[in-house]
């Protein structure tokens, strides 16, 4: 008898939202791997490779190759009473043996005696016959469908029926060519799939993975996303290149259209070049956002009066589809043009009073209030930078940009295209003659939107972006709107990440705690006059530092303990802290440093223990009480190296400072070899503790080495 076979499993569905298909097919795989492994139907080491899954708008598909058609038979051992209880001195079974045998449905003669570490025991051996894969799959496949998770599922028959993302209309479940019989939400699994909604046949019989793809292909369904993506890419290229054009790259859109179509092809449409008078950002947003069209550029990068639409048919022989899409786009562009012209009738700054009617947060007032807070913060930031030696910091410009920043929220254009907030304000500012610096600052105010998003392009933009984000953080924390789990309605995590990223990458001199307290001051001085207590400010600082740690780990490749060591010596000036992290990383594995770090940890422990007994080691070292040569030597070395290290630190030569500190090692080692700290004599003890305290204090201001080697707290 054949021992292995292939499984074809297809969940046929009404159109699944394009953005969810990839994740669902990945989940489908994980769930199947889990169930098939747990039931011993696949060989564990190759389970991942023997199962593949993919998806298209109307189907999620899994193919499992070479799975066992039957579970192995296994012998189970059930342990019973000890031999001494089960058999009497004459070797006759007792009541205990008989009842155990009865329970196991075996004659007593079939019981076996085994030696265990606890002595001799009676056991029963039971042969458990493996179930057939079909039997197991009958239960596993409906469970698999149930386990796929969706952001928002639905019911379609009745309240009692199972949920899915959209109604399931057919199921193919074929194991080795035979149907696995089960039903889910009133749909009976079978061996018939469905072709393309308009061009393919309905109810196409398949026999398994062998003919499935071929039959779908004949029925105008390309079930593998990789094939669809390649076809779209090729056509985006072939439709533009011969005309001296190219596709405006958009990886996200490419992914989306790959999952929007079962039979994709691309058509090239045109629009009236007069619309090119609108800014590119608006044209591209209209094409992409609403219509899912790719924009087209000339070789020089200017937008061309063309678009590329991906359709779910192989061809458009009569040009009807193209004409339809062109007409829809014309109407969309006409709308955008109408918004542009209407908005331009009012100067951007004149929208300001309207912001008073737009609530930012119930307790935090309107956007007009937020703008006032942002202005004062943006001014403060620029003043800080200017006095910190950044010559191009522009106080008045930052103030003006902050004043204009939120005005576009009440324009028609942003009302229609919310994703263009900021950008529209920037475009209007420029069109109305604001200086470039200010227009770009408004344009860039929401940047960076993520770890890989670029920063505002100029310093004024950084001031506005920071002012906006700092105000959001401090204000929201002050009223308790703090992110929890997946709930972060004001995108505060993103704001914090943005703040850290701007400061780090622009290398701006700025004290985080001073910035937070400036935001708190602004919050207190402007309506609705909310107080952010010191505890709240500390919370915000920790929140920011958490993001900073994240960036340093994820993007700069620093280790958890390196960051902690440097941050423990202060992280208020982030740029400076990063330089110290880098110095720690560079030196941590050198000959003297690693053992020295271990000694520092020892010193810390001693000091903690002593602090527990009331001596924190904060007193001055009394030279006359230093008895031992080793402690005298340490004292001298600490003085000498301390002076030099301090000088190097002042010059921000952190690596050199750490190298210098490493030179402490012989003296520290010598000290611990020869000197007992916790001696009876209180004066001596106190003095030695003070020596260690001085040492730790003196040499922990670049980084706290005792943090090195500690594990990440989970």
């Amino acid at each position, binding site marked *: 008898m054949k021992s292995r076979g292939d499984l074809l499993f297809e969940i046929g569905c009404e159109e699944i939202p*394009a953005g969810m298909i990839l994740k669902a097919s990945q989940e489908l795989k994980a769930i199947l791997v889990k169930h098939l492994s747990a039931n011993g139907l696949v060989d564990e080491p190759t389970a991942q490779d023997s199962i593949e899954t993919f998806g298209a708008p109307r189907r999620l598909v899994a193919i499992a190759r070479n799975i066992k058609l039957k579970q192995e038979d296994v012998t189970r051992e059930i342990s019973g009473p000890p031999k001494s209880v089960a058999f009497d001195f004459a070797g006759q079974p007792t009541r205990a043996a008989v009842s155990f045998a009865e329970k196991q449905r075996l004659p007593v003669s079939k019981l076996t005696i085994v030696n265990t570490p606890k002595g001799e025991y009676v056991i029963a051996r039971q042969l458990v016959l493996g179930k057939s894969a079909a039997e197991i799959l009958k239960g596993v496949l409906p469970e698999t469908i149930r386990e796929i998770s969706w952001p928002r599922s639905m019911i379609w*028959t009745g309240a009692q029926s199972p949920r899915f993302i959209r109604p399931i209309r057919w199921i193919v479940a074929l194991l080795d060519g035979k149907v696995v019989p089960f039903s889910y939400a009133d749909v009976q699994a079978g061996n018939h799939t469905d072709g393309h909604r*308009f061009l393919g046949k309905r109810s196409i019989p398949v026999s398994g993975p062998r003919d499935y793809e071929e039959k779908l292909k004949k029925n105008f369904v390309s079930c593998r996303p990789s094939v669809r993506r390649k076809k779209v890419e090729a056509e985006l290229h072939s439709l533009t290149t011969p005309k001296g054009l190219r596709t405006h790259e958009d990886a996200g859109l490419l992914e989306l259209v790959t999952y929007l179509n079962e039979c994709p092809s691309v058509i090239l449409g045109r629009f009236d070049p007069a619309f090119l008078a609108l800014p590119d950002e608006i044209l591209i947003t209209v094409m992409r956002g609403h*219509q899912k069209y790719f924009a087209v550029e000339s070789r020089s990068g200017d937008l061309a009066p063309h678009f590329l639409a991906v359709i779910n048919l192989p061809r458009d022989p009569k*040009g009807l*589809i193209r004409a339809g899409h062109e007409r829809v786009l014309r109407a969309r562009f006409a709308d955008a043009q109408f918004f542009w012209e209407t908005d331009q009738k009012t100067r951007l700054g004149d929208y300001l009073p309207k912001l008073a009617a737009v609530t930012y947060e119930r307790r935090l007032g309107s956007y007009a209030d937020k703008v006032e807070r942002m202005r004062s913060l943006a001014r403060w930031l620029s003043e800080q930078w200017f006095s910190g030696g950044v010559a191009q910091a522009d106080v008045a410009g930052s103030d003006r940009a902050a004043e204009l920043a939120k005005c576009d929220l009440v324009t028609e254009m942003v009302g229609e295209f919310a994703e263009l907030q900021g950008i529209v304000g920037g475009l209007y500012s420029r069109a109305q003659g604001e200086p470039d610096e200010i227009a770009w600052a408004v344009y860039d105010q929401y940047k960076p939107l993520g770890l890989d998003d670029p920063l505002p392009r100029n310093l004024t933009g950084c001031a506005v972006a920071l002012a906006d984000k700092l105000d959001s953080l401090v204000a929201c924390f002050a009223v308790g709107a703090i992110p929890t789990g997946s709930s972060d309605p004001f995108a505060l995590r993103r704001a914090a990440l943005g703040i850290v990223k701007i400061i780090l990458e622009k290398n701006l001199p700025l004290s985080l705690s001073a910035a937070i307290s400036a935001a708190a001051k602004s919050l207190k001085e402007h309506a609705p006059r909310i107080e952010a207590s010191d505890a709240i400010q500390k919370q915000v600082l920790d929140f920011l530092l958490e993001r900073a740690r994240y960036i340093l780990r994820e993007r700069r490749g620093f280790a958890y303990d390196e960051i902690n060591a440097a941050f423990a010596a202060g992280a208020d000036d982030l740029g400076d802290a990063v330089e110290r992290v880098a110095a720690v990383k560079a030196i941590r594995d050198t000959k003297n440093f690693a053992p020295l770090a271990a000694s520092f940890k020892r010193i810390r422990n001693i000091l903690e223990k002593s602090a527990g007994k009331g001596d924190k080691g904060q007193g001055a070292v009394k030279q006359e009480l230093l008895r031992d040569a080793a402690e005298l030597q340490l004292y001298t070395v600490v003085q000498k190296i301390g002076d030099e290290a301090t000088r190097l630190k002042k010059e921000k030569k952190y690596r050199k400072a750490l190298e210098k500190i490493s030179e402490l090692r012989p003296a520290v080692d010598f000290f611990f070899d020869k000197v007992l700290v916790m001696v009876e004599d209180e004066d001596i003890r106190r003095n030695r503790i003070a020596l260690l305290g001085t040492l730790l204090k003196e040499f922990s201001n670049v980084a706290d080495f005792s943090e090195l080697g500690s594990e990440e707290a989970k």
Partner: protein
Amino acid sequence: MARKSNSKVKREFAKLKGLTFQDLLLKLEHYWTMRDCILQQPYDIEVGAGTMHPETFLRVLGPEPYRVVYAQPSRRPADGRYGENPNRLYKHTQLQVILKPSPADIQDVYLASLAAVGINLKEHDIRFEEDNWESPTLGAWGIGWQVLLDGLEITQFTYFQQCGGVDLDPISVELTYGLDRIAAYLQGVDNVFDVRWSNSMTYRQVRLAEEQQFSAYSFDHADTASTRKQFDLNEAEAARLLAAYDALKGAGKERFPVLQAYDLCLKCSHLFNVLDARGAISVTERAGMIARVRKLATHVARAWLDQRAAIQTPAGMSA
């Protein structure tokens, strides 16, 4: 791909030219009445969407099967453009279909209705794109798509999950066709006002004055103080009725005017839309007023369900 000349495309569209606005409406109504739908009339109170018609809002509640089709002129004051915009209208015409429970072949039956009005399904790019519908004023939401015809939204296709704050069982499917834009598409015109309504009259001739005057009213003339007062009065009357219904103990439930309370709730919804278009509502106040309408709507839904249960032979069930 060889580019077809525009004149050729125009000829293709010319083949479809027979379908006037009214023929489109008649054909679709006929199509659905042939599939066992009741043919209902538009509701005689201002509504923003076909969903607000009691034939949808109330009929999807409870267990009784129901099938209905009707046209519903839908007023959206904020979308008015004085008749000057080729696509936006103060009042557009929806064709609404409710099928309860939702049949398993509903997508095919829907697509066949497009074929019935002359759309060759193999020659056009027709797709179902995710679009979950929600009406905060009605406490209703559903899962579904917008149906796109060559990039144009022509229908909202929704499996209702909740209505009036009540979880639905069975699930109804709602199809909402945008008749004006489908007609414009079929006739190959860019401006809805150029649509031929009948063989002798255009959409402009039939409807332009309405668009101009109602836009002018909601943007320029509506008196906000008195509109607010009307809102308050209608709300108070609806609330009074609903409280009176709740106080009933069995007797008198059957004839109690829950339906009137719903009409008053619809009035509130429209008055709110007028105020909103007039720019008289701040963002904060907006959420509050929506909540007031929703409170009435969900209360009506509960009362209606209670009333149906109290009546021995519920609507749609044979005695």
